[in-house]
Structure formats: structure tokens, C-alpha cells
């Protein structure tokens, strides 16, 4: 009985600590792809993207260049090279329940191409597009996995 009590005494603070740690972290899905109107090739992992983009911008071809699922920790930046010659930096600013505020910085040769803060929630995709790449444009999508 005494042993059980002592185990509980240590397990409870540990579980509380782990809960508080998971509260300040979020896993995001980062996809970099090229969208164009040349051809009709759509990578299988981007079929959902086409449906989402159709009301906004309609491309006939979607080609995946890169996919990552980094875990963001509160106020810690994660950098990843993004095609072409750009660097994307993600920082978790705040997290509350199933909502995460993430700062997104895209840099090219130390120049801030983009500096923004977005709110990720379940099912929401944030896409950043526009820079020309070949015949099409580069699109970066960001979503959180809660």
C-alpha cells in the first residue's frame, strides 16, 4: 500500500509535467509544391490541395517538391530550406487547445520575403503562393496536426 502511494506520488507530477509540455508543442505538415497549367499531372498526395484551391486559383498540374512534418515547440524556431533558394522559418508563438499561432518567415539571402503570423486550427490549411518557378508557381502549405 505504501509503495503504491509513493509511486502515485511520483507519477502524478510527471503526468502533469508531460501534459504541460505537450500543451506547448504542435506538429505541423509542411508541403512545398509547384502548381502550373502545363500538363495535368497531379501528385496523389496533392489531390486534396486541388479541391481546396479550385475556388481561389485553379491549376491543372500539382507537383510535390518537398514534404515535412516538424514538431514546433513554444518560441523555438524551426528552419527548412524551401525551393528555390529560400528558407522557411516556423515559430510556435502561442497554443490554446486546438489553435496554434505560428510565425512564418520566408527569407531569400537574408531578406524577408514574407513575415506573417497565422492561426492554425484543425482542418485549416494556410497556403503561401506566388513566387514563379519554371512554368508555374511555388506554393507552400501549412497545416497543424492536433
Amino acid at each position, binding site marked *: *500500500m*505504501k509503495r503504491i*502511494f*509513493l509511486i502515485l*506520488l511520483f507519477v*502524478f*507530477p510527471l503526468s*502533469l509535467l508531460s501534459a*504541460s509540455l505537450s500543451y506547448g508543442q504542435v506538429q505541423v505538415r509542411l508541403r512545398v509544391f509547384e502548381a502550373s497549367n502545363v500538363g495535368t499531372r497531379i501528385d496523389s498526395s496533392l489531390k486534396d490541395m486541388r*479541391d*481546396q*484551391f479550385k*475556388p*481561389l*486559383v485553379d491549376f491543372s498540374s500539382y507537383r510535390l517538391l518537398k514534404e515535412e512534418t516538424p514538431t514546433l515547440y513554444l518560441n523555438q524556431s524551426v528552419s527548412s530550406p524551401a525551393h528555390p533558394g529560400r528558407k522557411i522559418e516556423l515559430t510556435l508563438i*502561442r497554443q*490554446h487547445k486546438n*489553435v496554434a*499561432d505560428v510565425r512564418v518567415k520566408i527569407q*531569400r539571402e537574408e*531578406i*524577408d*520575403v*514574407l*513575415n*506573417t*503570423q*497565422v*492561426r492554425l*486550427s484543425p*482542418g*485549416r*490549411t*494556410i*497556403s*503561401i*503562393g*506566388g*513566387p*514563379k518557378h519554371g512554368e508555374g508557381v511555388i506554393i507552400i502549405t501549412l497545416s497543424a496536426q492536433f
Partner: protein
Amino acid sequence: MTDSCSSVSKLLEKYFDREVTDKERLLVESHLQSCLTCRDTLMSMEGLRTFIKAPVEEAVQQEDFPWVWQKIDREIRSQEKGSWWQSLRSWMGLSPLFKKKVWIPAVATIATLLFISTQVIFKKIPSYSERSVVEYIESETYNIMVYESEKTKTTMIWLFDEEDQESSRS
């Protein structure tokens, strides 16, 4: 009244209350057979008892004894129970788990955890609006447009080159 009367009269009250020994009872009864004075005294005692008994019984019938008993019972129970603090102390004293070596750190840990929990729970939580997906946005090199589609839960940030804008204007 004879000499023996004075000795018997001392026993007479005890006899009347049935508190005498067998030997005393025999002595009183043999004396009563021969002594009219003592018999009268005994009869007057009985008369007095009858005289008192009737009004006492009447008073008893009128009295609310269940209520009195409840009150007494409550008093007895409250004395038996003791204070909650005494109960707690005796329980802690009995249980080997709650010896000072264990429960003082345990209480300290629980108090610390409660303090941390309240800090987390009652921390001012910013209100999150589902509408403002993009908190702020800036670019040194591009013009920006933000499209939002609530239907597909998509937010698109579109970066325009100067050339794009020129071409779109012409």
C-alpha cells in the same frame, strides 16, 4: 411506643422502600404484629406515597418524554464523536501511511501542484477569433493578397512580383 420501636422505626423507612435484609424484614414484621404505633406510621407512609404518586403520574403522562430522550441521545452522540480534527489526528496516527515522514512531503507536493495548476488554469486566456487567421503580414519584396475560403477552410497568401502587377495592369 416501646424501646424496640425506636430501633424498628429506623428500619421502617427502609422496610417501606424494600431495602431491608431478610433478617431485618423478619424483625420489622414481627414487631409490626404487636405494635399499633409502628403500624400506623407505616400506613401513613403508604398514604403519603399514594398522595404523591397520583399527581406525579399525571405530570409524567403530560410530559413529552420522546423529545427529552432525543435531546439526551444527541448529547451522548456528540460527546462520543469528538471533533473532526481529533478524528483526523487519530486516523493519521493509526495509519502507517500517514506518518509524518510521508505526509509532510506529500502535502507539500500536493500544495505545489495545486499552485501550479491554478496558475495554468486561471491564466488569462486570450480570446481566439476564428475569423482572423492571419494576424499580421509583411513583405520587403512582394505585394501581398490574402484569400480566404471558409467553405474549404483554406487561407491563401499570394505574393505578387512587381512585374506581375505591371502585366496585370496592361
